[in-house]
């Protein structure tokens, strides 16, 4: 079985350049990424994630890219999901950590060696490793996992594209179902049903707001009215991989001024896409985009964000108001470009789409029109 995104040679290069002898994966996304074991909270059956406290999953990545996996031994379908040959079943947290220690000794990891751990590793696991390998150095392994995951394989790109299609279909279904009096609870139900009907496992996020209601906390019962905006921001999960697409819909007509804002946000999004190329520094694109917007309208400071997409929605911020990554864009990164501004007292108004960075530029994957959708019926 071929890995989905894990590339043994790339992993070995990253570990050797960083001086790490072995990297330990303990989070759902990184164990899934390195081994294929279905550990995600949105899986066909998320039982491994649900039972992770009783039966933790752990993966070891040696600096030649070799893998070893520890997993709940009741899970009998490892061969259907994982490419890891060296896999050991466990039935308790103690057994899992003991197994990891034994494997590290077998790999001659000891005094003078460097072990990378995830910052989200459970305390009992990291404390035991540090205790048992007191002569080794322990370093933050998070950046290594990110470096591996930022550049996508053809299969990962296929999954993110399909996830994007499902998110778009969910948005279209919500638009089709919208009428005066439709509540955010009903929109949520429509989105969930569509995502499942499309064959996706589930959703990463359903950020849905009507009028001034908080889109981060939908289900308040807020109802659609004529002339009011609704934000439909969806991330479906397709075989583990997520997307992030946002559109606005209004009944009959959009509030005065809203279309000008949307057009401006789209222009800034286009500016970003036109300037993102392999080798370009993220900070330069952000600064250029802010300057570009300043030329369009001074009285507003937009929120412009570009984040990597993959097993997590905001895998890494390439740029945002808060920070910029100190690595250049690379071919086959998949990113989300989102541009927002606060509109009246209705919260954020804007757009977000998924893009594929190719050798010749940044191509939009999302196919939905970039405008405020008007529902007249």
């Amino acid at each position, binding site marked *: 079985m071929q890995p989905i995104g894990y590339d043994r040679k790339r992993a070995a290069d990253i570990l050797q350049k960083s001086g790490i002898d072995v990297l330990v994966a303990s989070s759902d996304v990184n164990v899934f990424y390195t081994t294929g074991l279905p550990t995600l909270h949105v899986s066909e059956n998320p039982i491994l994630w649900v039972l992770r406290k009783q039966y933790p999953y752990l993966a070891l990545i040696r600096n030649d890219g070799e893998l070893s996996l520890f997993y709940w031994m009741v899970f009998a379908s490892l061969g259907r999901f994982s490419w890891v040959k060296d896999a050991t079943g466990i039935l308790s947290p103690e057994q899992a950590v003991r197994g990891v220690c034994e494997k590290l000794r077998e790999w001659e990891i000891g005094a003078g060696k460097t072990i990378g751990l995830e910052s989200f590793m459970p305390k009992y696991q990291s404390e035991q490793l540090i205790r048992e390998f007191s002569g080794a150095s322990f370093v933050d392994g998070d950046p290594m996992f990110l470096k591996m995951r930022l550049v996508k394989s053809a299969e990962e790109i296929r999954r993110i594209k399909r996830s994007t299609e499902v998110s778009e279909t969910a948005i279209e279904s919500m638009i089709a179902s919208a009428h005066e009096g439709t509540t955010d609870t009903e929109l949520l139900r429509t989105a969930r049903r569509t995502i499942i009907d499309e064959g996706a496992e589930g959703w990463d996020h359903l950020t849905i707001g009507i009028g001034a209601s908080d889109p981060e906390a939908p289900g308040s019962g807020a109802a659609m009215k004529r002339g009011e905006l609704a934000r439909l921001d969806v991330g479906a999960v397709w075989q583990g991989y997520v997307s992030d697409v946002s559109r606005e819909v209004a009944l009959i007509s959009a509030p005065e*001024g809203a279309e000008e804002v949307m057009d401006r946000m789209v222009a800034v999004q286009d500016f970003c896409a036109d300037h993102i190329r392999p080798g370009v520094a993220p900070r330069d694109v952000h600064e250029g985009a802010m300057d570009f917007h300043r030329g369009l309208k001074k*009285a*507003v*400071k937009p929120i412009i964000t570009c984040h990597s997409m993959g097993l997590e929605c905001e895998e890494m911020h390439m740029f945002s108001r808060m920070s910029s990554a100190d690595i250049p864009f690379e071919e086959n990164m998949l990113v989300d470009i989102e541009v927002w501004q606060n509109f*009246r007292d209705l*919260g954020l108004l804007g757009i977000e789409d998924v893009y594929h960075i190719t050798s010749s530029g940044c191509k939009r994957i999302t196919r939905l029109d970039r405008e405020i959708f008007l529902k007249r019926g």
Partner: protein
Amino acid sequence: MLGTMATKQEVIVALKRWIDLLETNAELADEFRGYNKTFLITLPDMKLSVQMVFEGTNKAHLVEGTVANPDMSLTVDSKLFLDICRGEVDPMEAFMTGRLKPKGNMADLQKLEVFMDLFEG
């Protein structure tokens, strides 16, 4: 070192400049149309609280004293506040480094940032 009254006056003058800008800059006023929110600024070193009340038009007014449940609030050292108002300190950077402690909806707070930007120009 500035005396308390002088510093208080500087703060009030800075906030009144925001109000003037809102009244005279049509583009800015358009962005604040329909915006009826109260922004509470607390300067503990001066024992001063001031509310800026946006009236949903190109008008806003100041009310000295605190208020329960403002839409947004900012607790800040008076010098830092004036530095931000003068465009000498980036408010987002001050927030990210923990020197600025705002409360409220991030989108609302971000909307106010434009006042500092326009002063820069």
